């Protein structure tokens, strides 16, 4: 975006600007790397980290010093592997042994690779890969073993896919294949990172016994990116949405992009979103196992971005037209909220889950399933941060109970009291009336009132005295 465009955008979206400013001004990194104390090769490594990663480089550089270098190198090594796998100008014959033996390359000082195509965006990293190897050799043995192990597994997985003609021509077939692919490119990263965290004593070792949790972390990120990038991938000639899902909605993969098929395409993307959303609970559960603040931020920020991205792509026709991204302001807001604690991250998840639910359409074949998946995330959050306290409810009922008993007795008493009071009051009023009436009638009688006449007239129905009885003389006294 040009500066002018940005200014215009922010002038009508002040909230977004506010988030960006808040992040820039108030964000206080838990740790900061100190380039002054770093060797020349390490500085070079960080230079390539900044070049190759937009989203991860800043969170990596704020990591706890214990893991700063291992995680940065782990990232660069996998990025190097990815750059070989991605490059279609390298022949399969050349590619396969490189991928399968990359873990050994890590132990060859001075190894570089210059055969990437000129358009490969991260080719510089491989041209200067010797600096990564130099630094890798300086790592603690425990960290080296973990990184080499994941590199081997991922390299072999990538080689299998490179060899798989069907995958390259028609894309992913079943959901199982899709998840296996996500395992190789993301689940393994989750495994490696978790092992590094636990080795560095920055995460609960129990996480090692729950492989499904770190797998979910990777799956959630990767699947969400695959949903978002469908158009970009199609333009690059790649298809990651599994046929098992899209074939339920359209006959040919390309049909997803035909405007007339929009409803079917959205139903298909909903099913993809549902498939990803189901990892939500396990991701939150995983994050509960992180002990270090910088590691927490490192894992939580991408997860929050992913749930927000999932909400963005859900029921959004734009995914089939162009690459969409969450706004910069939202990203800053999410980074701010996710670099606090699990509770704030849970709030993010709940907020976006409810937005997904609000967009959920009963016409969608997966309508109820999506509702259930949203409900499960909400229920899980409630299970770790309950909003109701049974003990408090017990007390409430007890006090209400005793209060009602006491109150009702009081009420009965006061009701009784007020009833007698009313009786006395009535008696007094009636008594006063009787006395006064008696006095007046008596006085009138004494004064000579003819009550008998009045009664006879009343009996005749003459309630209003007639003129004849008028005490006022009617005659004209004019003559006098």
């Amino acid at each position, binding site marked *: 975006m040009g500066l002018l465009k940005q200014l215009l955008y922010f002038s009508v979206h002040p909230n977004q600007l506010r988030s960006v400013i808040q992040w820039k001004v108030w964000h206080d990194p838990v740790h900061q790397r100190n380039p002054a104390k770093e060797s020349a090769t390490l500085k070079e490594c960080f230079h390539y980290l900044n070049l190759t990663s937009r989203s991860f480089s800043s969170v990596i550089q704020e990591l706890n010093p214990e893991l700063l270098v291992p995680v940065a190198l782990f990232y660069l090594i996998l990025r190097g592997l990815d750059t070989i796998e991605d490059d279609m100008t390298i022949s399969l014959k050349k590619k396969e042994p490189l991928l399968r033996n990359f873990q050994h390359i890590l132990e060859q000082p001075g190894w570089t690779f210059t055969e990437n195509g000129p358009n490969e965006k991260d080719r510089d990293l491989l041209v200067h890969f010797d600096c990564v190897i130099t630094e890798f050799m300086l790592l603690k043995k425990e960290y080296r073993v973990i990184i080499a192990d994941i590199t081997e597994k991922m390299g072999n997985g990538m080689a299998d896919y490179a060899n798989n003609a069907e995958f390259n021509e028609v894309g992913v077939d079943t959901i199982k294949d899709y998840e296996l692919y996500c395992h190789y490119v993301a689940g393994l990263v989750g495994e490696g990172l978790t092992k590094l965290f636990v080795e560095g004593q920055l995460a609960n070792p129990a996480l090692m016994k729950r492989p499904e949790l770190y797998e979910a972390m990777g799956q959630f990120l990767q699947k969400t990116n695959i949903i978002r990038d469908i158009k970009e991938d199609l333009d690059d000639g790649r298809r990651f949405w599994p046929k098992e899902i899209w074939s339920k909605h359209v006959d040919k993969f390309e049909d997803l992009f035909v405007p007339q098929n929009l409803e079917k395409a959205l139903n298909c993307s909903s099913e993809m979103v549902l498939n990803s959303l189901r990892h939500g609970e396990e991701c939150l559960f995983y994050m509960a196992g992180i002990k270090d603040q910088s590691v927490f931020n490192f894992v939580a920020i991408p997860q929050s971005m992913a749930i927000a991205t999932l909400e963005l792509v859900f029921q959004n026709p734009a995914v089939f037209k162009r690459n969409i991204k969450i706004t910069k302001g939202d990203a800053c807001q999410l980074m701010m909220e996710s670099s606090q604690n699990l509770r704030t991250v849970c709030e993010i998840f709940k907020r976006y889950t409810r937005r997904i639910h609000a967009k959920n359409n*009963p016409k969608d074949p997966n309508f*109820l399933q999506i*509702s259930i998946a949203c*409900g499960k995330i909400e229920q899980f959050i409630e299970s770790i941060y309950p909003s109701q306290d049974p003990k408090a409810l017990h007390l409430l009922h007890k006090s209400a109970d005793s209060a009602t008993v006491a109150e009702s007795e009081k009420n009965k008493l006061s009701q009784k009291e007020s009833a007698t009071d009313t009786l006395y009051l009535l008696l007094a009023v009636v008594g006063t009336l009787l006395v006064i009436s008696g006095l007046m009638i008596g006085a009138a009688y004494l004064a000579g009132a003819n009550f008998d006449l009045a009664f006879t007239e009343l009996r005749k129905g003459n309630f209003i005295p007639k003129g004849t009885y008028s005490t006022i003389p009617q005659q004209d006294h004019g003559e006098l």
Partner: protein
Amino acid sequence: MTPNPAKRDLGNVLVIGGCGFLGHHIVNLLLSYKCKVSVLDVRTTRNRRPDSDGVSYYDGDITCLSSLIPIFEKIKPAVVIHTASPTLAGGSRELYKKVNVDGTQCVIEASQKTNVKALVYTSSASVISDTVADLVNADERWPVIPPAAQTEYYSQTKAEAEAFVISANRSSSKLLTCALRPAGIFGEGDVQMIPQMMKVYKDGKNNFQLGDNTNLFDFTYVQNVAHAHCLASFALLQTHAISTPVLDHEKIDGEVFFITNCEPVYFWDFARAVWRCQGNEKGTEGVWVISRDVGNVLGTVMDWGMWMIGKKSKLTRREVRYSCMTRYYDCSKAKRRLGYEPIVSLPEGIRRAVKWFEDEQAKEGEKKGQ
């Protein structure tokens, strides 16, 4: 998953209310277990299994102890599943008290006198709901609403009966008891939830939404509830067979368990899924959203207005409350101790229930046509 039920021996099982909505599903499921099933009900003409299934049916009134005893003595049940109760809507206060409280006491006494080993009582998840306050992921630690605060008399009687059942555990005989609290049962033969929702669509009144629909609600498919009853019966029998005391965190006798589909959904989403099954093609466009407060005012006006002209209001304050309330439970205790897992998912349950009602209506239509 759950071990093969055919290998689970339940001996003689008596299902009280076995011709009712939940009861007949329990009977159906029990047929896959190794057991002899008998049914006691006020009316044994409806929901009957074919004779070939070997279920014995007894007409009987649970509020009359002297009539219960001979039946119990004849059947000699090892397990009694007591699921008889008037429905939430339509019963009078007297009936609720008579059947739920007095009836349950009779069943307990009859069980104790005839050496029954296990009594499983169908309570209700509503015993912890005052019909106003939200219940968010509630579990068995939540307090039962005391009578003074309970506005739904049905729930009060269920709570009283449940308390009698639980206190009868290991009291004067070797009888072991437990109570299940299912939440929002629906399914084939349901007389409340599904027919009401289906009627709303048939009457074309599905374009209203009370509340903002962010309230999660538990709806439980009837076969899952039936499954839980079978599991509880078997578990109590197992406890009965061992002489060593059970650890507190594994105890089943004398305990209550919430039973749900473990799939809470937003209240109106459930209704919309039902309407979708009925063939509704519309989305949420054109749906009128009436907020909780406006709904309450409307409900009040309708309640009084209709009362004055001597009719029953279609929009009552009670309905407004229920459709705006968050009410879902955590049934992990049942999962841990009974090995409970829903056997039928929510979408599948809805599909089956709606299909059943449509088939029934078609059958009725045919009868009328003839």
